[in-house]
């Protein structure tokens, strides 16, 4: 039975699961992010590598067996649109995000998880990110693709 309340509760539970895993994996740690960028531990690479490896297996199995979701619809994985020869927008946008990631020690998921930890400063990061999104929305058609 897929009532709206059930759907909300489901996504809420998925989010709670995500928040717990991100905390217990220490991926929300500013220290761990700096350690990763200085290649001083395998920890973060192990997490990302395992997540990508298992994620690839899940994605493959879902495609291989043409799995349907609970609504009965076939599952399509979204494809990122390639842009030009060098995918410049992905590279430039990636560099800018990477700089923000190292500065704050948090990516968009952990920003919210850390808010739950009681770090009110993450509210400032979220507000600043919304300003960044707004500026992108204003100028995006003038940026290199």
């Amino acid at each position, binding site marked *: 039975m897929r009532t709206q309340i059930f759907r909300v509760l489901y996504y809420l539970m998925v989010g709670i699961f995500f928040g717990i895993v991100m905390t217990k994996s220490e991926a929300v740690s500013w220290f761990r992010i700096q350690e990763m960028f200085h290649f001083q531990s395998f920890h973060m690479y192990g997490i990302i590598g395992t997540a990508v490896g298992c994620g690839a297996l899940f994605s493959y199995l879902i495609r291989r067996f043409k799995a349907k979701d609970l609504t009965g619809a076939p599952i399509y994985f979204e*494809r990122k649109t390639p842009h030009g020869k060098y995918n410049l927008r992905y590279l430039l946008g990636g560099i800018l995000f990477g700089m923000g990631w190292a500065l704050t020690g948090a990516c968009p998921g952990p920003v919210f998880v850390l808010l739950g*930890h009681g770090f009110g400063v993450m509210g400032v990061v979220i507000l600043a990110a919304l300003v960044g999104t707004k500026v992108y929305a204003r100028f995006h058609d003038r940026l290199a693709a």
Partner: protein
Amino acid sequence: METVIHWISQPWPWYVSGFLISLMIPLLALFEGKPFGVSRNFRHMCAAILPGKDQYLKYDWQRLGWWNLTILCGAVLGGWVASTYLAPDQLHLSMAATQLIQGWGVSVGKALSPAFFINTDFLLSAKGLLVFGVGGFLIGFGTRYADGCTSGHAIAGLSNLQLPSLVAVIGFFIGGLLVSWFVLPILFMN
């Protein structure tokens, strides 16, 4: 229940964490065919709060984004649960990183984040504004320009063998290395 909580409260090895993160993909795909990605929530929030005249923010964010925004609320709750009940202070940083970061003048303890993060004085200083204000801006602008973040590109995108995601992840590291090697030491070391 006590034993379960004790067991969960232990430090988690990377292969357990990595596997559990990968579950986000089937948890979302098999339920309603949704993709894993967090940063598009910034677009939804922006569309909700300050759409203005921008076409990029003129869409039905409630219908398209409610489930992802709900996950975000859950993530905040999950952070609270984990930091309150599941032995929050257990950072196992390498000795090399501990020495490096202490060399920057930042103290390292058992806590997951530096103590200065919760210090409002730092937030109101020029450095704090740079770290949180500029850092946050770059997260918002960069993830929209790159069309994804660590979850959408590094986890979901690479899992699905997307070339643009590989390019984006290379970008994440170029930007991260630049800041972590050349900006943070200058920023903190005085």
